[in-house]
């Protein structure tokens, strides 16, 4: 999965290197998770990684509990599962364990009757996001998961199947290997905000290509609604188990061969070559391997402010993911291989809103007929900010860049609202050019600099009165998350108090394994229902004033 995504991102960015002689990642195997944990769970001196990422993941990260959400098998809580099982039964229409051979949930049934096949397919669709079982792994892992389900979304779900890179990535010289060569071994380029955002968005927004899609039928019977997704804020709440390049500081092999080398590096390089890394893929240092363009232009990406970069680069990737998801679904519907309409594709709040007796004083300006389910607005917001970042915060240039996107967006919106639920063929055809122009913007913002002045400029754009007129709740929250994240990079002290301390928009996420997404619905859904765009406009101007204060 991550390889496919990473490859796609690379090819769309236009620098896919021919890796024909290298091993095909499709055959890459998953390794036992304990192999990861035995290093990453222990306190070890390391100048590159935070010492205990696996411990952070195991103790504080919800992803580790993703499968327990479906069926409580946590030995520490044997009785807590009844409610979860009931909800999953309601969503699926059958017991989760009906698809498994036994109550230990170790493997799916292999029976060939239609009923079993249907149940197994439905459960697998859940496991794409609730465990480590990407579509790409199906070839070798049709019924037995590649990684124990109980581990939830574990290391290799994001970092890629480890068989081929497990050993080499522990070598010091691995730092000087170009990302494409690592990708060819199955190692996902999570260092790149674009690749990372595509990974996260494939579940948190959805991806038809990866079979990660929550259909409305599931929402309607109890799957919690996916909230709008802002990468930097979600990472912070996750919490992160890595250091940004800026935080890593001056690590060994950063830009040059380590001075203290006692001959180990040469052995490393030989080992890398034996693993399938071609010699030309090993550079002088980490920076040269990862940021060749930056070296030429004099930028220093290792000094980039990580939250700002993730917010903006992921912002545009998330919009692209949203558009591709709709386009891919519409393409299936156009071929009659998927049911149409699929209500989960549209803005939830278009239907699920309070029916007002009085006309609201301000409303989102729509360019399309009212009364027909439109696209969600929130994925656009940070892509628009990305246009400013790509334009160096020159408003005219940013407008020009955004207008290019907006032309495609207008066509896509028209295809979606030309009739109720839209025309799937027209939506399919309009989605691709829009997604492509967004991918180009993503590649462009990835190359830009994220220094303090960029963060400050981004905050000013986000708080401009013209940036977001009469937003809906999710767009406002997306903006507020971005402001909070970017202000974090600048260590703005007042940021704690913005948006009534985040309460009015329910900015807090249920981080940690003990806080429940279901419980948090009681916070953010009422906040969405009560949301007043005029309040937000006032609040934004307060934030702007605070940011401008010395």
């Amino acid at each position, binding site marked *: 999965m991550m390889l496919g995504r990473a490859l796609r991102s690379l090819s769309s960015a236009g620098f896919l290197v021919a890796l024909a002689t290298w091993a095909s990642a499709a055959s890459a195997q998953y390794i036992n998770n304990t192999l990861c944990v035995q290093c990453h769970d222990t306190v070890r001196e390391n100048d590159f990684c935070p010492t205990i990422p696996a411990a952070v993941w195991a103790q504080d990260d919800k992803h580790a509990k993703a499968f327990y959400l479906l069926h409580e098998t946590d030995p520490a809580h044997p009785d807590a599962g009844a409610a979860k099982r009931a909800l999953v039964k309601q969503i699926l229409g059958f017991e989760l364990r009906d698809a498994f051979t036994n109550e230990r949930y170790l493997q799916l049934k292999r029976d060939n009757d239609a009923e079993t096949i249907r149940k197994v397919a439905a459960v697998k669709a859940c496991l794409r996001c609730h465990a480590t079982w990407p579509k790409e792994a199906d070839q070798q892992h049709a019924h037995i998961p590649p990684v124990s389900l109980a581990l939830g979304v574990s290391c290799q779900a994001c970092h890629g199947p480890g068989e081929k890179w497990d050993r080499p990535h522990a070598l010091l010289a691995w730092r000087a290997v170009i990302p494409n060569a690592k990708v060819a071994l199955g190692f996902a380029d999570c260092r790149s905000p674009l690749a990372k955002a595509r990974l996260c968005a494939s579940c948190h927004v959805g991806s038809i290509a990866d079979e990660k899609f929550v259909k409305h039928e599931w929402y309607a019977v109890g799957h919690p609604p996916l909230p709008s997704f802002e990468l930097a804020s979600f990472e912070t709440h996750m919490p992160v188990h890595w250091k940004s390049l800026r935080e890593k500081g001056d690590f060994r092999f950063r830009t040059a061969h380590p001075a203290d080398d006692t001959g180990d590096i040469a052995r490393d390089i030989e080992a890398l070559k034996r693993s399938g890394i071609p010699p030309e893929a090993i550079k002088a240092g980490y920076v040269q391997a990862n940021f060749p363009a930056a070296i030429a232009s004099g930028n220093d990406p290792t000094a980039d402010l990580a939250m700002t970069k993730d917010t903006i680069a992921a912002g545009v990737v998330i919009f692209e993911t949203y558009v591709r998801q709709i386009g891919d679904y519409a393409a299936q519907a156009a071929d009659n291989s998927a049911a149409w309409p699929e209500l989960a594709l549209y803005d939830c709040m278009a*239907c699920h809103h309070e*029916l007002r007796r009085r006309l609201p*004083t301000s*409303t989102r300006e729509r360019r399309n007929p009212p009364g027909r389910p439109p696209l969600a607005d929130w994925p656009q917001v940070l892509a628009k900010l990305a246009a400013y970042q790509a334009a160096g915060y020159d408003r005219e240039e940013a407008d020009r860049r955004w207008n290019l996107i907006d032309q495609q967006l207008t066509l896509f919106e028209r295809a979606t609202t030309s009739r109720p*639920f839209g025309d799937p063929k027209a939506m399919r055809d309009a989605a691709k050019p829009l997604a492509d122009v967004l991918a180009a913007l993503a590649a462009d913002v990835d190359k830009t600099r994220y220094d303090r002045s960029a963060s400050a400029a981004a905050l000013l754009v986000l708080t401009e009165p013209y940036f977001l007129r009469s937003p809906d709740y999710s767009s406002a929250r997306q903006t507020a998350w971005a402001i909070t994240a970017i202000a974090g990079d600048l260590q703005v002290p007042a940021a704690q108090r913005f948006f009534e301390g985040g309460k009015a928009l329910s900015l807090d996420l249920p981080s940690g394994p003990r806080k429940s997404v*279901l419980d948090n619905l*009681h916070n953010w*859904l009422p906040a969405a229902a009560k949301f007043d765009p005029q309040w937000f406009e006032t609040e934004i101007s307060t934030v702007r004033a605070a940011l401008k204060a010395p």
Partner: protein
Amino acid sequence: MLPAARAIRLTAVTGVGILFAVGPVSAKDFALDEPASGTAFVGSLSCTSVSCHGNPPAQHGPGSVWQQVYARWHGSEPKYHDGRKGYDPRARMERHLGDPHALARQRMTEPRFQEVLRRYSTQPDGSRDNAAMLKCAGCHDPMANESPSALQSVEHGIGCESCHGPAQNWLARHYALDASRDAMITLGMVDTKDLLTRARVCASCHVGSSENDMNHDMIAAGHPPLRFEMASYEALLPAKHWDDSVRRVRQPDYEVELWAAGRLASTEASLMLLQSRAKRAASTVASLPAAAWPEFAESNCFACHQSLEPKSDSSLSPALVARRAILPWRTWNHALLDQALSLGAANIGNSPQRLLSLGDLRATMENSLVPDADETHRLAGEASHELHLRLLNGQSAQSHGSTWSLLLSLEHSQSATWDELCQHLAALVAARRALQDHGAVSPDDLQPISVREKRIAAALRQKPAEWTQDDLRAMDQQLQMLTTDLLSASRTSLPAPRSTERVK
């Protein structure tokens, strides 16, 4: 002129007020029939001479209601509420006296209306679309579509001839001593004394027609959804310009008959509207302007417009349990149709029979999120044809003792949607008014009944989008109790239904 009034004028020559009484109109296409030629509007001012319908209102001098028609309709000058005109898009025109229909034209100038029109128009420059405004005028100022110059006058609105028919041919005759009802109908006057005819005139806008199609696009732009109920609407008119007191003494079931006429006309209009919507959406008809399909205004509002906040299991609708996303067909317009039909059936000695094709139509409408437009067109045509035949066969709502029949039939009826609950309450209120006209309820009995009525009405207004199945069932029980109260209050004094006798 309102299209229904047109159709009624066309057919009223037979005196029965049935849409298909004349002309070679096929059942499938009746919704799109042509207006008759040869009659013309003369304008409301022709009716308002002081010696005719233009006497000053009662507080300024003596006169019968028929002499004060214009004053009662016109009322006082409107004032703006909820904001200043020209400044606040919420500003709304209101007045305490007069018929709201008189304001319909002026309402088109209020900022709220213009804002809804702007949102509906979706012009790139934010302007208002002229074609859309003419569509609005179909109901808000029917004269505007007849003569463009009438748009200049704020006086028209929904004026005399909008409901009573174009007066050119009957204006000079209708006050003659020897002018018979049938003769006037022949000349194009709409027989509004006939309750079904009257209800059809109202339903042509308040439910809609192929020409006056107030759809979900307009609702989303800000137009209130249409929720018509004849008896309550008439009761709510602040200054009715007709006097029904004598009729109510002679015909104490009047309120129930009005209710039943409203139900029949609403069903009829909604079926024809659905038929025209489906026809325009159907693949086989290319010459008509395309309609939005599915038309969300045909569905239960609260099927989609519900809070996302988690609810208990019991709130899951049967559709969700069946794991199929469907848009339940809206029941507002045909709720209690069986009861309305059975009142007439008793009159001609038939046992009440359901409208058979309605079930097939519902099944088609709810078969998918995008119902088959051709099939919907066919079935809506069949259903309205079946209803027409029933009405042609003399199945009228007017029968002595219909209040009693209605209450008995409501005793065991179940309402499953909020729409049906509202209609159920409206039916009981109409029955209560009829019981009062019968003199069948003592003031002691009336008091608790009114309290329960008000409590139910207040509860029905409380966030219907958030009602669970349990809430709906509980409300249904409340309505059953109200029915029981009404029956026990009137059981001793009401006559048993006399199926063959008809009160003129």
